[in-house]
């Protein structure tokens, strides 16, 4: 097989482009100071770790991001990749920044977030552990 034929192989790359893996660019959707500044400056946060066993993030997963030279944690509240029926799919990969205790850095989320995030975040929350459900309190709209 000649070298040029390799580029004619029929495999798709677009699915993988939508995956949230290390070095993926994300969009901060809350009104935290650092998040707003990063988005305004055109320096969106970069995912540097996904806290799950697959390494590919999806709705409700915790990610570690590099934002304006700082390390922050965030929760994915909406993703671009293909979703099963009745789960909304968004045009951007959205995160809400949180601190180590699970408290969001901002006090308002200005995009819709999926309803099933309620159940997912409640399941991830343990007594005396990190409380993620505070994010739900600052959400403006569910779809």
């Amino acid at each position, binding site marked *: 097989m000649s070298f040029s034929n390799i580029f004619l192989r029929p495999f798709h790359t*677009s699915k993988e482009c939508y995956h949230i893996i290390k070095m993926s660019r994300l969009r901060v*959707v809350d009104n935290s100071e650092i998040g707003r500044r990063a988005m305004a400056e055109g320096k969106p946060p970069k995912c540097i770790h996904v806290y799950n066993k697959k390494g590919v993030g999806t709705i409700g997963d915790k990610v570690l991001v590099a934002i304006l030279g700082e390390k922050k944690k965030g929760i994915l509240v*909406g993703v671009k990749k293909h*979703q*099963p*029926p*009745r*789960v*909304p*799919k*968004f*045009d*951007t990969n*959205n995160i809400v920044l949180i601190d180590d205790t699970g408290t969001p850095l901002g006090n308002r989320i*200005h*995009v*819709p977030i999926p*309803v*099933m*995030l*309620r*159940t997912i975040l409640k399941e991830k929350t343990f007594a005396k552990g990190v409380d993620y459900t505070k994010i739900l309190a600052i959400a*403006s*709209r*569910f*779809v």
Partner: protein
Amino acid sequence: MFSNLYRQCLVEKHFVYNLFPLCKWSQCFASSQPELATESTIQAFEEPEKRSIKLEQRFIYPEFLPDPKIEWRNSIRERLERQDMLKRRSQIEIPEFYVGTIMAVTSFTPHSTSKKNRFLGICIQRKGCGLRATFVLRNIIDNLGTEVAYHLYDPTIEKIEVIRLEKRLDDELFYLRDALPEYSTFPLDMEPVILPDNTPIPVNTTQVILKPRPWVGRWERTDFKGINREHMMTLISDKMKMQIAKHQKPWEKYDLMKQYRATIPEEEQKEIFAEVYSQLHQLELGKKKSKRIRTFVKPKKSA
């Protein structure tokens, strides 16, 4: 439900076997060809008046046609699925809709306190057949593009409303993802537009203007009629323009077998719609009745 249907099929099969001894002499002499038999049965129930009505139904109920992939065909499974689909249709009203129609779906969800979730958007794709038929709705909510896919026969769906019944120029509208946001923004509290009876389905001939690249698809290589081509050409580089011709496949127009393998032949379509005709007709009658009641009430209120 499933077991009942299956039994019914078995009974019918049994009936066929009972007929067998009657025609045993004709079977013995192995001269008649099997094609002849099927042909005659197809022609038996063909009536000139019903013919056109039945074939128009394929646009309204495309999911009643089976998957054209030959390996996946199974007549008993297809039939059972059709029965199940009709049963589901008798439970909730699944309206006539097309790609480009603005619809709202209310579905049950265990995640929220009200246990209900309503999503409104434009249908950008209709895919799949049988019980696995799906459609995708798209809307821009709070400046964020949102898409939700639904199974048409999902039992958790409570209500499907058609807000504005119309068609677009294309069979799928994924280019709306790269179009300017106003083309897929619809207020969530949109009022339904009721078309008068017996009007043809209006075709929306808008040609969308795309956002600058990057895009999710190579729209310049496709021939979607709903994209404003002149504007699109200003957005792409010269190299991309040169590559358009390279990716054209003009011979596919003449590939008769490819077309044949992608579709269900007319005779089979007739057979299928003849099978479900009476039940679908009754459902439509019931729908009309309820519509009349609704339209009768409304002018009173406004007056």
